[in-house]
């Protein structure tokens, strides 16, 4: 008798764990999601251990060996100041990946907050939030990021802020839709009935049950933000030299594309790898969280 009761008590916990396990199992069966995940982790490790991997400091100039094509000493060649392109690309991964990750966290966080408010309270709050989101969404996100970074000026945090704004509308809409979808469920009624506080209801009951679409879109958004960051520094906003950033490296090599194409090719390949990996993983995550869509 006693064992049955304890089994019943632990039921929800086991179920929750097995759901997560099921998602992971589905993910691991999807080869492209696994490849994406492995490449993303690999790039993250490169970013973390950049000082150990890069053979030269990113700003070390060697005016005797400028514009060298790729060779054993300089895997990706050197730029117009004799800096090692390979080392710069390795260091550049730090900037792109952190901006991508944190801009998405910030933008999604703000979006989720306002989306929850709009979805949970409805009525006037919903109207005000959603009209503002409408306006925000009417400005193409790259143009918004350009405007904000013109105002804030260059730099890591300013770029991060500028790019995060573009992620707000999508997260907000998905969160709101998710909450509207579960609003009439019995377990919410039960939570209200046992007098749980509003923050508790939102944090413990509403968010975990409506978060999946936001998670998928956030994963895809990281890649999108990395592209945006590269574009901002390509047109001269974003981080400034000598800090290596993939987009600004491409911009720097642009005028030398005839004589030293490697200055443009390699940073671009790394942008592509990073975004490709995140997109592959994001696609897989979407299918794993919603197996209905696959089949």
């Amino acid at each position, binding site marked *: 008798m006693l064992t049955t009761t304890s089994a019943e008590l632990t039921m929800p916990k086991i179920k929750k764990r097995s759901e997560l396990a099921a998602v992971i199992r589905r993910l691991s069966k999807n080869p492209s999601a696994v490849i994406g995940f492995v490449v993303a982790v690999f790039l993250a490790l490169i970013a973390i251990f950049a000082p150990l991997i890069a053979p030269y400091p990113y700003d070390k100039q060697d005016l005797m060996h400028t514009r060298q094509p790729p060779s054993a000493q300089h895997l990706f060649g050197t730029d117009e100041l004799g800096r090692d392109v390979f080392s710069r690309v390795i260091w550049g991964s730090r900037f792109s990946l952190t901006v991508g990750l944190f801009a998405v966290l910030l933008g999604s966080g703000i979006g989720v907050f306002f989306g929850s408010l709009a979805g949970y309270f409805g009525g006037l709050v919903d109207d005000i939030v959603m009209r503002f989101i409408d306006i925000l969404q009417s400005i193409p996100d790259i143009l918004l990021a350009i405007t904000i970074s013109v105002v804030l000026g260059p730099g890591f945090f300013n770029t991060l802020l500028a790019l995060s704004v573009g992620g707000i509308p999508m997260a907000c809409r998905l969160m709101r839709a998710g909450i509207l979808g579960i609003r009439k469920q019995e377990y919410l009624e039960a939570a209200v009935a046992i007098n749980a506080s509003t923050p508790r209801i939102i944090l413990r009951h509403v968010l975990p049950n409506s978060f999946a679409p936001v998670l998928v879109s956030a994963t895809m958004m990281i890649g999108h933000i990395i592209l945006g960051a*590269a574009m901002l520094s390509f047109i001269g906003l974003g981080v400034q030299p000598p800090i290596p950033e993939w987009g600004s490296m491409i911009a720097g090599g642009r005028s030398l594309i005839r004589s030293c194409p490697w200055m443009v090719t390699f940073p671009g390949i790394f942008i592509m790898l990073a975004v490709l990996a995140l997109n592959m993983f994001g696609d897989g995550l979407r299918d794993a969280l919603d197996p209905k869509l696959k089949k």
Partner: protein
Amino acid sequence: MSRYILRRLVQLIPVVLGVTILIFTIMYLIPGDPVKMMLGADATIADIEAKRQELGLNDPYLVRLGKFLRDIFLHFDFGKSWVYNVPVTEELLRRLPRTLIIAAACILLQILVGIPLGIIAAINHNRWGDRIAMFIALFGISMPNFWIALMLVLYFSVRLGWLPPYGIGGIKYYILPVIANAFPGIATQARQTRSSMLEVIRSDFITTARAKGMSEFQVIFKHALPNALLPVITVIGNGMGRLLAGTVVIESIFSIPGVGMYLVGGINTRDYNVVQSSVIFLAIAFTLIMLLVDLTYAMIDPRIKAQFAGKKRRRKRHAHHHKCRTHHA
């Protein structure tokens, strides 16, 4: 239908006003003195003060905002470039056709290449045709358009010498910019077409069509495709934002004097009125295009059409019942 169009037009007004106010407010917050930066270090205080007065920068926020909105929406006047002292509106209108040509050509390419690619992938679901098409599409959404542009220049202009690397002239000057800018759109279109085709192919009416012995070709093109096209139209609309923003960097790579290159020029010369006006101009253009897409959607989708017919019928209490009926038949 005209009621729907009217309602959408009215809904547009607060959005366009909101966009303008938002951009104006963001630009208002520029720290430091833009005039000081504009005139350089050797400007006297009197010069700076005179310029500030001339540009109306000494007025309070609400006064400046009010004047700005009045000039734009009543006189269609974006003011003057701070650096070159020429009217911004004329410049924007003169440059707009080039930007629109690029955007329109990109959309055309997106439809002509992206949709067939998606159909091929869906028909060959989980076979090699699908895998290859989707792999190409995945690459397409993962490359920055400016990098694609430079790679295209590297091969087709520098190595092969087939196409001009920059400038404007005949059609061949537009080929590389359009391909570079359309690439992400083609890829997104292919992915969306595939998934909405797959969804439709699983529906019961497709099974019915097959069961009654229709050829697979007819099933796909007569039954599946028309039903799968609706979400595909939405992708075209959403892609417009990325396309317009994409022209910003594409135009400056290929030295095409469109709105985007104007914007980048404004950033480099700290001509903040040019930046502000170009962004607002592009955002309004985007909103208008989205409206057109929504209207097209409503016109094609019988469900939205029926919704309006239904409302009308209810409101007029069967007075026009017969007319509506015949209209629908």
